[in-house]
Every structure is written in C-alpha cells, then in structure tokens.
C-alpha cells in the first residue's frame, strides 16, 4: 500500500517539476495514439458506413469479421507488423521498425476495427426511413451519407473514445514494434513495463497514474462535446 501512496506522490512531483523525460514520454504517447486514432477514424468510419448502408452477398460474414476485429489481440498485431517490417520482411526496405511510425501503424490496425464496428452499429441504428427522407428532399448520395454520419455523431464519439482508449493503454504491440527505445519510442505503457521489471515500482505507479490522468483528460473533452450535443 505504501508503494501506491509513494507512486501518487511521485506522479505529482514529476508533473509539477515538468520532468523532461516523463514529459517527452507522455507527449509521444499522445502523438502516437492520437495519430493512430485519426487514421483509424478515417478508415473505420468510411468502411463502417459503407457496410452499414449497402447490401451484398456475404455481408453478415463481413460484419462478423469486423466485430471479431474489435477484439484483435495487440500482441498478435505487434508480431505481424514486426514480421512485415523486418529488414528482410516484405516492407523491410522502408526501414521503419523500432520507430514511432511503426507504433502508429500497429496501433491504427488495432483501433480501426473498433471504430469500424461501432460506426457500423451506429449508422445501422438510425431509422431506415431517414435515408429515403433525405434523398427525397433532393440530397445527393454523398450529402445523404454525410448527414447520416452527422446524425450518428454521438455513438461515433463513443467509438473514438473506445478506439483511443484501447490503444493508449496498449503495451504488447508498442513494445514489439517500437522497442521501448529511450527518448525515441518509449511511451507511457512501455516505460511502465520497464520500470516494473527494474523493480522501480513507485516510478511504475507514477507513470500509470499519469497515463490514467491523460486518458481521463482526453475523455473529459470528448464527453463534454458529446453531452453538450445531446442538450441541443
């Protein structure tokens, strides 16, 4: 129990003193997971909406695949991305293994099905007549899709939170493709693992608390937007 207390004190100490290493690690966590979330939003919402609005043979199979993808194990993604990015792997010529970019790729792969699955459910939950109504009012197909996405923005925001939450707290893939390199690809979760194995439990708890604070702040902003929209 003392350890947790010490960890909390250490976390605040690190934050107040603006410890440059911890600050760098925190910022990198935000950049990597933020960028990966943006990418996953772009791909996830487009494909999710497309699948929600179209009929094609094998659609149920595709939906079940997307839903399974929501539980994609990060270590498996990490392993596959590593194999692809190895120097003698198919994308080895890029030379991006053990860089923040590789972490973004892995995290985007983890977050995309989450965003996709939630978008799919959100768009599907809109009343069927809404589509016809929008079209009869003279909207083009593109405008109709845009209106539907706007209409479903509240559950879509939940998708953003789920995707971001899933990857900022993820460690398996990040440590494999990023390598936890000091001052370069070390993020909050991988640093926590390392400090734990070094026996610096107070530091590990401090990093954990900073991670929680960060996740809370981001979700606070998103929730503010989400709930303000609700009142309109």
């Amino acid at each position, binding site marked *: 129990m003392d350890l947790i207390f010490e960890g909390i004190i250490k976390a605040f100490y690190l934050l107040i003193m603006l410890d440059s290493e911890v600050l760098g690690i925190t910022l990198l966590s935000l950049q990597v997971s*933020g960028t990966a979330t943006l990418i996953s939003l772009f791909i996830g919402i487009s494909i999710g909406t497309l699948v929600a609005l179209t009929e094609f043979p094998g659609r149920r199979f595709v939906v079940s695949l997307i839903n399974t993808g929501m539980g994609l194990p990060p270590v498996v993604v990490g392993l596959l991305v590593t194999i692809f990015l190895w120097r003698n792997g198919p994308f080895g010529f890029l030379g991006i293994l053990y860089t923040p970019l590789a972490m973004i790729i892995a995290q985007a792969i983890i977050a995309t099905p989450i965003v996709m699955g939630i978008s799919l459910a959100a768009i599907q939950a809109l009343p069927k007549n809404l589509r016809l109504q929008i079209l009869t009012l003279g909207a083009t197909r593109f405008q109709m899709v845009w209106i539907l996405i706007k209409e479903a*923005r509240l559950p879509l925001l939940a998708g953003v939170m789920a995707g971001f939450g899933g990857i900022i707290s993820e460690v398996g893939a990040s440590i494999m493709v990023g*390598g936890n390199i000091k001052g370069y690809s070390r993020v909050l979760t991988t640093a926590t693992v*390392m400090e734990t*194995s*070094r*026996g610096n439990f107070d530091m590990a708890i401090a990093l954990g608390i900073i991670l929680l604070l960060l996740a809370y702040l981001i979700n606070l902003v*998103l929730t503010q937007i989400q709930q303000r929209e609700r009142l309109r």
Partner: protein
Amino acid sequence: MIKRLICFWGILLLFSFPVSTGAQKSILLATTTSTQDSGLLDILIPTFENKTGYFVKTIAVGSGQAMAMGQKREADVLLVHSPEAEKKFVAMGYGINRRLVMHNDFILLGPLEDPAKIRGLRAAREAFKKIASTDALFLSRGDNSGTHFKEKTLWRACGLNPENEKWYQQTGLGMGQTLNVASEKKSYTLADRGTYLALKKNLSLSILTEGDAILLNIYHVIEVNPARWPKVNAAGARAFADFMVSKETQEIIRTFGVDKFGSPLFFPDAGKKEEELGK
C-alpha cells in the same frame, strides 16, 4: 465540432516527432534484459552517442532472441551472455569479432527459510541436486535467455531433467520480473548478480550459493557479419564494439553501481581470455 476536434489533434501533432535519424547513423543493438534492467546501458549509450554521433536503438531481449535477431540480420551488434550459443553463432558465420567485455556471476537465490538447506553450499551442482531431491519450488526464466541457458546447463551437469517436474515452473519473463515472482512464491531461482543487486530492495530472497566457477556470467560483444548480410550497419557495429572494450568504457563499468549498491555490478574484462576468468 468534429472540425474542432481535428484541429486540436493537428496542433498537437505539430510538435514534431523525434527527428528520425538516417539509417547510416543508427545502430540496432540487441542485448539482454540484464544490461538494461541494471541501468548500465543508460549510462553507456548516451556517452557513446555523444562521442560518435551514432544513434543507438537498444532492443532488450533474452540472449537467445538477441542472437536470433542477429541471425536474421535484424540487429547490427549484440551484447549477450550465453557463451556456448555465441560460439555456435560465430562458427555458423552469423557474427564476427566476438570480444570479451565484462563478467559478473550468477547466484542461486532462495527464500530465507531455505527448505532445501543449501545455504552456504559452494558447489552449485550439489545445491541443484538438493533442490530437486526436496521438491522445493524452483522458478526458471524459461525464455531462452543467457540465464535460462546457464540454468539448463547446470541441470544437465547434475544429470537431471526437471522440465516436467511439479516443483519446476517457468515464468517466460525477464530477470527482474522472474525475481519478483520468485520472491512472492518463496521459491529458488538462478539470477545474475547485477539484476539482483538492482532489485534487492523489493525482494525477500537471499543469496544461498555463490562463487562456484561454473556460475560465471560472461558478456561478449559480437558484430553481425556484414559479409553475410551486406545491409547491416557494419561501421556502426564496429564503432560500438570498439567503444565497449575501450579503456574509458571499461573504467565506467568498473565503477558502475558502487555508489548505489556498495559493490560493482560488473567486472570489466576487455582483452582478457575467457579461460582466465574466475581464477
């Protein structure tokens, strides 16, 4: 609303990512968890980087995985402690210039109660036999690391194969985590002295057997063979290996940890022969 959100991220991302250094200037170092967990690399790597301008990407894994990375040319230079496997690695042409860097030793740790009564035994083999005969819980790294390799060698030297015994469990984790598990489960385990000293404050384990010549833990630096893999950063690997055996580095190793733990964690050995150690 969504636009505002994207703006928010855009601004955040403007803080540029750490400047990525060109491939020529970066070195991929595959090493063991003990060199990272003990904190030695945190001191050596920045010194090396300041001196040479190279950027070192340190990947801390078990010695077995480090050599597997070298074999697939996923690393430029290795700092490992699994001599027999290393010799094979070099003999098969994957690595060149295997040079002795430093040593410390393995120690047999166990709970304070010491159910197998091995405290003070100097012969590691005898201690292992006693643990086996009393069915006392033993935790193995089980991860093909240098420590795991040494442990398997010891069991084999005793003529035992504990692999399927009930009292023999494998964590599959790094040294630091295995020590924590061993401490919690009150079990015996084999550890390198450096990691043990670094973590000692949180552990309820004591050193029971030490000082046997078979328990030496020897670290070598190996460059991945550029003749075999032309794409490795051979110049960088050479620079790092030279740095590890240089006089100044050896002096840092000699004093590393003295202020914090009262005794050094590693003993510098550059230029010596492996056979001379422990005598």
